[in-house]
């Protein structure tokens, strides 16, 4: 199969959906004139015009809020957050408007808006440009939340997100953008809400997503060499969470490790661990290990930055500790 980058995959998804549905448009800071900081919007204005690919003022609150408004008025906006780090500027618009209007208004509203947010650590971007903030949105009923780990899913999930009549947050990792992977040429959708068993195994389950999945696969390889057979699950969607896939795996392997780049405390790993401890704890044969970013802001210095997120070694050790 042909290989394209994650950024190109998202570009294809955008182009196909904009082609297919004139109600789809996209707005955000610095996306039109230069194609996005990560090239993820390159060429779109040339294809669809500057009306449908809009450079906005630096007004995150209103970018998101007007996305909600445009959705309520029948459009299908995609809004770009530039860096997920700024999502808090529009937080109220997300949890008090985007997520609630449908329910609060008794189903009168549909809110087909997609919020795209580049996240993750890269090259000493420091405390305010490196975060992973997906966990907050687990706690906000009314949203869907997806977080692809590879180009194929990036495309398929973005297309599904755009076609979804519910608000979808789409977290895309900054390091992943440049990575290539196989992406089918024919049109396809990746369903929201289905985890992906990336690698089957019988001794331990590792659940992860986004960039950290790669570290888990790395760790799994090392563990295999020692005869530990690892099942690796790519969550792909955080809300709704595919608990069935996790539970089935845990029932089989009896051991669970969860890893993500976001701060460990209060992260997505907490919800997964808690759900497992509530629903299928009897299958477990040891503690549930969680790996996540350290409980500090992300430091600038490369010397510190590189040790902030969980490493392959950390994941490997966590598995060894419980097996």
């Amino acid at each position: 199969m042909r290989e394209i980058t994650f950024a190109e995959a998202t570009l294809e998804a955008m182009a196909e959906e904009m082609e297919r549905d004139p109600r789809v448009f996209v707005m955000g800071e610095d996306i039109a004139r230069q194609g996005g900081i990560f090239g993820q919007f390159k060429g779109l204005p040339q294809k669809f015009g500057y009306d449908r690919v809009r450079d906005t003022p630096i007004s995150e609150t209103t970018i998101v809020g007007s996305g909600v408004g445009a959705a309520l008025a029948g459009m299908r906006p995609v809004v770009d957050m530039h860096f997920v780090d700024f999502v808090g500027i529009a937080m109220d618009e997300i949890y008090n408007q985007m997520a609630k209007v449908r329910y609060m208004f008794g189903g009168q509203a549909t809110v087909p808006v997609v919020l795209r947010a580049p996240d993750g650590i890269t090259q000493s971007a420091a405390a305010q440009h490196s975060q992973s903030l997906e966990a907050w949105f687990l706690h906000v009923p009314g949203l869907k939340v997806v977080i692809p780990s590879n180009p194929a899913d990036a495309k398929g999930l973005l297309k599904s997100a755009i076609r979804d009549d519910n608000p979808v947050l789409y977290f895309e990792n900054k390091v992943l953008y440049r990575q290539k992977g196989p992406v089918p040429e024919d049109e396809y959708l990746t369903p929201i809400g289905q985890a992906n068993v990336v690698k089957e195994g019988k001794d331990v389950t590792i659940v992860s997503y986004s960039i950290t999945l790669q570290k888990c696969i790395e760790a799994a390889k090392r563990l295999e060499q020692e005869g530990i057979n690892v099942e690796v699950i790519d969550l792909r969607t955080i809300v709704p969470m595919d608990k069935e896939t996790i539970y089935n795996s845990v029932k089989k392997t009896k051991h669970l490790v969860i890893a993500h780049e976001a701060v460990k405390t209060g992260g997505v790993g907490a919800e997964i661990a808690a759900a497992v401890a509530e629903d299928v704890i009897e299958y477990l044969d040891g503690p549930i290990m969680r790996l996540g970013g350290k409980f500090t802001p992300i430091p600038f210095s490369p010397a510190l930055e590189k040790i902030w997120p969980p490493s392959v070694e950390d994941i490997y050790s966590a598995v060894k500790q419980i097996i």
Partner: protein
Amino acid sequence: MNSIDKELLIKMYMNMVKIRRFEEKANELFLNGEIPGFVHLYIGEEAIATGVMFNLNTDDYITSTHRGHGHTISKGAELKPMMAEIMGKKTGYCHGKGGSMHIADFKVGMLGANGVVGGGFAIATGAALAAKLRGSKQVAVCFFGDGASNRGTFHESLNMASAWRLPVIFVCENNQYASTTPYRTTTSVENIADRAIGYSIPGVVANGNDVFDVYEVAKAAVERAREGGGPTLIEAKTYRIKGHFVGDPEMYRTKEEVNEHFENDDPIKNFKSQVLRRGELTDEEMDDIDKRVADEIKEAVEYGRKSPYPEPEEIYDDLYV
């Protein structure tokens, strides 16, 4: 006044009286324990929603505030499902999920009241963007209070709407108070309309107690927006006669201050005296409308009272499509 024919005069009067009676009834029902939650009354501000809304079509959009009954009625919503909603009943516009602070009627372009002060700016801006992208000639109107004009969303939305020449009209209902706080103690400008200069758009002050003045000012703004001229900021000066919400102890102002405004600034009294003086409507005609409105309110209350509460299993309905 030449743009206002008799039919419109009647409609305007009827609308203002409908709001007034609806609110008086809501007040009564709240104190009687029949309406739960927070209720913010629009009494004394009827001329604004009325004057603006008769310039709009059903498919135009509005966003409203916590004080949203008047906007909802004016945009064409029906009283029965409104009353049922604020009573928390299943037959309400939002099946009881919203209540007074979250009343909405999407069928008539009423995109919702909002419990977040200043939450409507961006939504209206987005609705206007939708209209512009479609080339549909619809406009959006954002109602907001003097207090809301200090939210960052005011600034961001006016800037974006102007930079993109969106068909949106921002209507500030300056009722002199934000909850307990007198307007000028926290708002740094005499006329909120003057803030328009910061966005290169027209800023116009209207007499919010005079439906004719509001109507004319809004008419120009709506025409401008529809023709692609971009946004306008309207400041309609009025006064909040009632407490901030039903039950407000109102320790922040004197009875005299309130009474003076009640005497001089009642938009319905103003309307009556103008049309009588000009011989455009008679007392009998208006009395007749009063009666029809009274009946409609009565029916709405009965409807609300008779309606059932939602069933427990409905709690999960309408979360996702």
